[in-house]
Structure formats: structure tokens, C-alpha cells
């Protein structure tokens, strides 16, 4: 499933985007400890494609996608 989320991000002077915090629509907030990787990837699970950020949240690796100007995560298994 595709879940759009609100994201707090930092733009550096070169225009590079670094997501810092994910705000779930039920009010929960997750701090992003680190961005491990960024690549253009399709998400077959959620349906769509964009820049896929591999981020570490609470010690776990998660994917966060930026599709044009909206962020989404894949849900459906554990979440």
C-alpha cells in the first residue's frame, strides 16, 4: 500500500534534499537518524516511482520515496 506522509527536510546550498523527520498522519513523529542511500527506484509494492531514500529510524532501515513533490512510504507488512 502507498501511504503519503508529511516530511520535514533540509535543502542544502546545492539543492540536495535531506529528509529529517517523518510525520505520520495519526500524529506519530519519527526522527530520521541517518540517510544511508539515495537512488531513483520504482516501488512495486506501493505503486509509483521516485527518489528512494534508505533511512535509519529507531535503528531500523526503511525506504522513503520522494515522487515529484510528495513523499510516501510502503505499508502493508509490519509498519
Amino acid at each position, binding site marked *: 500500500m502507498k501511504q503519503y506522509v508529511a516530511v520535514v527536510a533540509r535543502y542544502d546550498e546545492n539543492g540536495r534534499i535531506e529528509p529529517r523527520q517523518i510525520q505520520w498522519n495519526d500524529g506519530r513523529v519519527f526522527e530520521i537518524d541517518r540517510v544511508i542511500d539515495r537512488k*531513483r*527506484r*520504482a*516501488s*512495486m*509494492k506501493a505503486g*509509483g516511482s521516485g527518489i528512494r531514500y534508505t533511512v535509519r529510524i529507531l535503528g531500523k532501515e526503511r525506504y522513503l520515496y520522494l515522487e515529484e513533490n510528495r513523499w510516501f512510504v510502503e505499508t502493508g507488512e509490519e509498519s
Partner: protein
Amino acid sequence: MDRVILHSDLNSFYASVECLYNPKIRQLPVAVAGDPQARHGIILTKNQIAKKYGVKTGEAIWQAKQKCPQLVLVKPNYQRYLRYSHLAQEIYRSYTDRIEPFGIDECWLDLSGCPNSEDGGLRIAHAIRRRIKTELGLTVSVGVSYNKIFAKLGSDYRKPDAVTLIGKPQRESIVWPQPVENLLYVGPASKRKLQRYGIFTIGQLAQAKPDFLEEIFGKTGRQLWIFANGYDVTPVASADTKLSMKSISNSTTTVRNLTCDEEVHGILTMLSESVAARMREQGVHGSTIAVSIRSSDLQSVERQKKLLSPTCVSSVISGTAMELFRENYRWEKPIRSLGVRVSDFDEDFVRQMDLFQKAQQQENQEKIERVVDGLRKRFGVFSIQRASLLKDQQLTGLDTSIQNQIHPMGFFSWNY
């Protein structure tokens, strides 16, 4: 040194994008189809599963449903397809800047002299195939060859998600046994004509005498012989070139049948405006105006006329189109669809002065239309409109700007 040319084809493009965005329908037969309410109810593309049921591009929805009652129909989302078309081109651009799009879902790439193309382009072709899959979630079939025609044949040969090499050694084994209509530019009419002379395969075409073919088909006969033999040397137009553009057209199937000159005038005006705007955007002036008319019994006619001097003014285009229409249509049947096309582009256009200041008038008109272009770009297509089009908004309220077709190459009219 042989050239290294790829032809990359996004498989079942519209349907694949829809399936990417909707995981639930991926395992079902899916077709993207126009809106039956607006009478655009034909199949635009179908996925591989629907293909197995015999669903064909171009047929009516009811025909497709007869073959496959559980067919999932999805409305087209052109903005999204354009985005994916550009994303695919971005991937191609990381290998070469010599890219020539052919429609929204196909491109030729010239890799001659590019790094890592020493193996004839196979490695890059596979890299492109993999990247399209992982980065965009779509599949391509890629043809690899030393000329554009065989590269295109290669991309049709095995699909989806495949690479086919047609080098010189494969010419006789892969290309020549294929039916002659698989060759680019051999349409149904020329296929019938060729078959009348006993030419059924590409190989038979290749081995026919070029003089004989020229006698039957004119200049294009020799061209087809060149294509069949793999002698074509047409370059792949670079990404930013405009030279290969031969015509700009737009057509529409109207929401209801047209029954009088006034309605036709409205539609021709709307189509001419969008064609003219596109011409100004591309910086071209054209001197041949064509109008195509399809009546409710699906009979088509096309008539064209050459102007004394080239233009990109919509009122001149629509005026000529209307004149052609009046001269050639007798209203025996109502009209289902109309099209306007401008060709014969003059890129180094210099306006000729004339005695009666007609040239000056045209120049002023062009200036006005450029202002309209600017307004529409900033505030949308409907921000400024001709009053005559407001009379019947159901008929003329289409956003024509996304539907313009630019024909990348000269096409042989007898194929159509």
C-alpha cells in the same frame, strides 16, 4: 565502422504505467481506453494478459469486452505518461545525446563512438533494460543494430523486457523471413500492393530489383528496398534538433456528431489554434494545410492546399481548412472526427513584402497570437478564448494543447 543504433520501446506503455500505480490490477487483464461518454471509447493500449484474450489496440470497448468480459478499463492519464516518457529519455541521455523520440514510448539512440559500445551496443542495451525496470518499474524491449530500421525490427522481435541483436550476420536469419508488413512504413495498402507482385517477406523485397520497385511505387519503392537490405543511413536526430520535424497536426473525435458548417468551423478553429501555437513554439512556418474528415459511417477523406506564402497564423490556417472543407464535403453524412495538419515547413522563413500590405497584416496577427500564447502559458488554455468558441462549450471545451502530434519523419502518404 558500423554504426551502433538502439531502438527502445516501452512495452504496453500506458497500461504498464497504470499497472505500476495500481498493484491490485497487475494480475488482471487491463486496457487503457478513451471515455465512451465522449465517444473516445477505443482501446489505446492493453497489458500482456489482455493481449492473450485477443484484445487489440484501436478496437471499440464493446468489442474488447466481448472477448474478455472481465477486462479492467482505465482512463488515460496523459500527464503521467509524459512524465514517464521523459524519465525514460533521461536514462537514455546518460549514454548518448543522440536520441530521436518516435512517439511517446519509442526512441532511437545512436551510440556510435560512445564508451562501452565496442560490443555493438549489447551491454548498454541490457543496462538500459535493467535500469528502466528498477528505476521506473516499467519494461522495455530494445533492438540493437547498425541501422534504424533493423533496430526497430529488433525491438518488436522479442518483448517484453528483452534485447535483440540484429547485426549483419542476423540480417538473413532474423529480418528476411519476416512478413513484409513488419518493415517500418509498410502499411496495409503497400502490403497488398507488394503481395500482388509476389513479395510476401522482407527478404523477397530485399532481393527484388530496385528499378522494378521504383516503377511500381515511385521513389519510395527504392527507399523500401534500401530499408529491407539494411542499407539505410538515416541519422538519429540529436536530442535538441528540430530538423526532422515534418508536420504538426491535431485531430479530435467530437463529443457528438457534427451536423452543420458552424459546428465544423468551431472545431477547425480550435484545432488550428493549437497547431498554430505549437508551430510558433517550434519556430516554424508551413505552407501546406490539410484537413481530414471522418463521417459517421467511418469514411475518411483528406484534402490539402498549398498557400502562396508560409504561415503560423491560426486564422489563416483555420480559414484555409474551412475553405477546403466547404469545397469537399457535401454533408451526406454527419461528421464524427476532424483533423488539421500543417506541413512544408520553411525554417529560414523571411516574410515577403507585397503591394497590398497583406504581409504586414499577417505579421501583426502573428504578434497578437504570440501574446495569446504567453497568456495561456501563464494562466491556462481557457484564460483567453475566441468568443465564437463560447457558443457551444460542450463541443469546443477541449484542452487541445496536450494532444498535438508532431510527426518526426516524412511519411509516405500511400501508406495511410
